[in-house]
């Protein structure tokens, strides 16, 4: 087919064996990677979900300290963006995904041979510091006049929908017992979930955008990854009952064509080590053993 030929042309011979996938993104990646770091150093390129930005930043400094001569380059984007880039031949050494599905896709494309989960991330409710809607628990979310969530096509949006579903079932069954949580009783304005959906003003493609809207006070409440709510963020975090929380499972894998598979393995090992897990926990992630 013509499209196949064209894409193969774009991909270049080196990448042609990768079925139907172009390589322009790879070129862009190469230009980017080539530009930073000095040549004598080993450059380890880690493509990681944006929710890992802060935790991996700390781990990067630690790793570089322990491995002189190694420069860790972080490429952060939504997992789905990284997945598409990898499917189209973007170069790198390690891929860390915010869910299993995108990792599976990258494996199906033949870019990763082995992977495993390394952390879980929970969700959190966030409100602006002045909390204009006076929300103190998830149950009071319908008090907000403007709610911003992640779009259901991205992991955080999908988890949020699952969370709302669980909460819906829970609050609608327990509303009589809990009392006072929902504005004037839970069922008056429809179910919990329907009330929340009614107040959603935007479904955004990534967590940072969602957070920004809360920080600027434009949204009264939002649901994001707990790991994204760092101390630097001007928002107030309201914990979600553990029984309702839906955990995102983070997966990591080494790219099959990594130029430094040995260093890459050391990075993956750091994630699993107890110091690594401690850093992840500091940033709102849940260690796998804890659940």
């Amino acid at each position, binding site marked *: 087919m013509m*499209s196949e030929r064209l894409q193969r042309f774009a991909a270049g011979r080196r990448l042609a064996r990768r079925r139907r996938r*172009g390589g322009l993104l790879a070129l862009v990646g190469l230009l980017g990677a080539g530009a930073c770091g000095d040549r004598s150093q080993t450059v380890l390129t880690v493509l990681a979900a944006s929710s890992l930005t802060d935790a991996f930043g700390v781990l990067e400094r630690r790793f570089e300290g322990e491995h002189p001569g190694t420069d860790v380059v972080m490429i952060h984007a939504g997992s789905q963006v990284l997945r598409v880039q990898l499917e189209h031949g973007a170069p790198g050494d390690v891929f860390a995904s915010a869910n299993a599905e995108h990792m599976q896709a990258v494996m199906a494309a033949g870019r990763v041979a082995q992977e495993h989960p390394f952390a879980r991330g929970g969700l959190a409710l966030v409100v602006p510091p002045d909390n204009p809607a006076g929300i103190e628990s998830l149950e009071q979310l319908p008090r907000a006049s403007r709610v911003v969530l992640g779009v259901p096509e991205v992991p955080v949006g999908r988890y949020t929908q699952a969370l709302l579903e669980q909460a819906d079932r829970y609050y609608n069954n327990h509303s009589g017992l809990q009392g006072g949580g929902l504005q004037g009783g839970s069922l008056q304005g429809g179910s919990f979930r329907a009330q929340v959906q009614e107040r959603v003003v935007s479904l955004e*493609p990534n967590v940072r*955008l969602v957070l920004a809207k809360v920080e600027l006070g*434009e949204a009264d409440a939002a649901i994001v990854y707990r790991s994204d709510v760092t101390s630097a963020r001007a928002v107030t975090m309201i914990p979600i009952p553990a029984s309702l929380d839906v955990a995102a499972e983070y997966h990591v894998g080494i790219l099959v064509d990594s130029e430094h598979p040995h260093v890459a393995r050391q990075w993956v090992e750091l994630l699993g080590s107890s110091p690594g897990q401690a850093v992840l926990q500091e940033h709102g992630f849940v260690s796998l053993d804890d659940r």
Partner: protein
Amino acid sequence: MTGERLSRGLRGGLRALPVVGLGIGLWVLLVLPVVALALASSPGELWDALGHPKVLPALGLSLQTTALSLGVVLVAGTPLAWWIARSRGSVARLVEITVELPIVIPPAVIGIALLLVFGRHGPLAPWIGSLVFTRWAVLIAQVVVAAPFYVQSAVAGFRGVDDDLLLVARTLGATSRQAFLRVAVPVALPALLGGAALCWARALGEFGATLLFAGSYEGKTQTMPLAIYATFEGDLRVAIAVALVLLLVALLTLVMARAGRRWLARSAASAGGGHGR
């Protein structure tokens, strides 16, 4: 004799080859992504994309908001461009430069800036409340990002209007306003229409500022580029097909605008010929 001329022509052609090659290279670079997009989708997928639940609301919203923002830019941008083109002072130069600023500022930064101005805590909030997440926000983002393209083109067009034409129009009894409408605008019309087409196209493709400032909600603030991005998060193939729909709509409109321009020029020419027959 002819042989000599032929060889000279050939040598000239060879010398021009690198330059021509560069031009062709650029053209290929511009067209190839579009071709790739077109070839990546089958007609069936394109048809399915039209039926995708996100597409029709987004397409409708895009056409509606871009028509409105183009209208705003034309009505407000034309007098502004006229003033810039006609004024000689340093204030006018400053305005001219600042009008073009949004072209160099990344759209996402414009989006943040708009959030600060029109948000709940912005300086205008006491009077107009927050415009974030509303259709107004979509409109404002498009105007800010696209208007410079129209104003720039209109200024160039108005600069091309000979001073004497206007003075003659005035001596013939036209007020300065009439001289503007009956002489300056028709004479600069090709530049105005070219700028308008560019402005509309930019508004249609607007993504970054809208995403930050207006958010993304189906049927309300989710324009076509935002819908493409949202589907891209889920399924790349659908996203490509949806993108192709946008591309076709844009292409159709621009071709129609071009045809309209030619028709206008021809009818202006024959309008003179049609009278009193």
